C-alpha cells in the first residue's frame, strides 16, 4: 500500500511517502506565513511528478486545525491531483497526527497526552489523547483555548507543543516531539479507504474558531 501524506498546518512543511511499512519523510521548518514550495517538497522525497501519482493508493493531508491559509493551500493543491488520478483524499486531524508523532517519545504509553498549538492572537488549539496499541484516541475534543483555560489543563500526563514550553518545569514536556507527515500516513493507513468514499471535493480544512465579522444592520 502506497500513501502520500502532507502536513503544512503550521510553521513547517512536511511530506511523506509510505510504502507498506517503510516511510520516507522530508520536513522543512519555516515562518508560518511562508508558502510551501511544492518543487522542494516533492524533491525532498524523490517523488517524480506526475508519474508517481498513478502508483499511489491514497493521498492524505493534515486538514487542521492550523494556519487557515496553509490548510487551504494544501487542500486545494491536492484536490485536482486526487481527482485526476481517481485517488481517495483523506483528511487527517493535525492535532491527532501530532499526537501520533509524539507517541515515540512517551516512556509510559499508559499516560494521557495533551497537545497544544499556537493559534495566534493569544489563542491555542488544544486536544487530549490516550493511546491504545500506539493509536491515539480522543479524550478531550479539539478546541480553541485562551491561555487562562490552557493552564487549567496542567493536570498530569505528557504534553507536546510549543505553548507548553513556559510550564516546562511543572510538566512532562515532550520537547523533541514535532509534527510531521509520517504520522499523517500512519493514521491514513488505518482508514478503510477501499470500502469508503473519500471524495476530493469534500476534503476541506477544519476551521475551529467562530467567525466574528460584524453583519451590517446589527
Amino acid at each position: 500500500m502506497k500513501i502520500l501524506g502532507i502536513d503544512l498546518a503550521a510553521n513547517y512543511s512536511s511530506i511523506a511517502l509510505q510504502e507498506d511499512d517503510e516511510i520516507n519523510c522530508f520536513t522543512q521548518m519555516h515562518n508560518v506565513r511562508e508558502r510551501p514550495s511544492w518543487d522542494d517538497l516533492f524533491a525532498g522525497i524523490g517523488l517524480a511528478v506526475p508519474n508517481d501519482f498513478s502508483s499511489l493508493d491514497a493521498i492524505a493531508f493534515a486538514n487542521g486545525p492550523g494556519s487557515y491559509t496553509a490548510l487551504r493551500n494544501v487542500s486545494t493543491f491536492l484536490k485536482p491531483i486526487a481527482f485526476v488520478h481517481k485517488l481517495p483524499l483523506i483528511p487527517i486531524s493535525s492535532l491527532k497526527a501530532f499526537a501520533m508523532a509524539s507517541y515515540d517519545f512517551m516512556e509510559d504509553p499508559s499516560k494521557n497526552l495533551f497537545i497544544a498549538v499556537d493559534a495566534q492572537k493569544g489563542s491555542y488549539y488544544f486536544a487530549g489523547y490516550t493511546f491504545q496499541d500506539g493509536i491515539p484516541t480522543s479524550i478531550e475534543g479539539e478546541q480553541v483555548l485562551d491561555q487562562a483555560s490552557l493552564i487549567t489543563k496542567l493536570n498530569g500526563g505528557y504534553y507536546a507543543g510549543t505553548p507548553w514550553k513556559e510550564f516546562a518545569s511543572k510538566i512532562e514536556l515532550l520537547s523533541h516531539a514535532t509534527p510531521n507527515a509520517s504520522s499523517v500516513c500512519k493514521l491514513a493507513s488505518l482508514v478503510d479507504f477501499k470500502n469508503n468514499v473519500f471524495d476530493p471535493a469534500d476534503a476541506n480544512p477544519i476551521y475551529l474558531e467562530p467567525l466574528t465579522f460584524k453583519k451590517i444592520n446589527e
Partner: protein
Amino acid sequence: MLTLGIETSCDETALAVYDPNKGIVAEAVYSQIDLHAIYGGVVPELASRDHCQKILPLFESNILNTININDIKLIAYTAGPGLGGALLIGESFAQGLAAALNIPVIGVNHLEGHLQAPFLGKNKVQFPLLTLLVSGGHSMIIDVEGIGKYNILGESRDDAVGEAFDKVAKLLDLRYPGGPEIEKLAKNGIKGTHKFPIPLSDKDTYDMSFSGLKTSVLYALQDMSEPTDQDKADIALAFQDSATEALAIKVRKAMIKTKRKLLVCTGGVAANTVLRSKLIAISKEAEANILFPELKHCTDNAAMIAYTGYLRRDLASQSYKSLVRSRWPLKMLTEIHG
C-alpha cells in the same frame, strides 16, 4: 491546444477554456455575492473558504461537461493583484491540476486580463486603444499600444469608483454590490436636489478621487434627521452624476490627448448606463469607436485570464513555486512583440 483559465482574485470563482481556433469554448462562474451581501462588502477570509470549497465541483460539473480534461495543455491563473488568500486558492488549484496532468502553468496579471478582454468578442479589435477600467478594485485610464505595452494615464488616488458605489450604497442601506442598487434608486431621484463636488475636475491630471465624494454623501445624510426614501433617491442620483462625470471628464481629456480611435470601457462599473451614455457621447465627439465588452467579460472572469495566459504561454513552466502578488502593477509586465 486548450488553455484553462482560473480567476479567484476576489469574490468570484471563475473557470474558462480558450481554444485559439474557436475562442472561449467553456465558461463557468460561481458568484459569492449572496455570501458577502450581509456584511456590506467582501470578507476576504470567507472568500478564500468559499473558493476552496467550490473550485473542484465547478470544474467537474461546468467545464468537464464540455471538454476532455486531457485536451487541456496549459493552465493560466490570476496571480495578482487581488486578495492574497483568494489568489492562493486559484494558484494551488492550477498548480495541483498542472502537476496531475503534467502540463505547464502560468500566473497572469488580472489587470492585463481586463485589458485583453475586448479581444474575446466578435468585433475585430486592433491596437492602439484607450481603456477605462472601472471596478470595485480599480479606476484607471490606460493607453494600450500592444500586449504588455500599457501607459497608465490616470488612476484613482484613493477609493476605486466601484468601491465608492459600494460604500455609498451601505450609507443608503442598500445591498452589496452597490452599483446596480444605486442606479436603480437614482431613477426615482429628482435632479438638482443635491449637488456633490466632481473630484479633481479642475486639476491638470488624469487621476481621479472618490473618497471625498463619498464623505460628501455622508455629510448630506447627517444633515437629515431621518432621510426619506425620496431623500435617498435624490442623493443616489446626485452621487451617480458626480461619480460618472468625474470619470467622463478624465476620459474626454485622455481621448483628446492620445487621439485614439477606439475607446473601451471595462470592469463591473461599465454596466452603469449613465456612464455608458457619457462615454458614447465622448467617442462621438472624438470621432472614435467605442466598445463595451460583453458584461460577463467586463466583470471578473476567467475567459480573459485563459486568453492572456495563452498570449504569454512562452513564460509558462512546470515549476510549482508561488507567484502570488497582492500588488502587481501593470508597469512590471514585459512587452510581447508580434
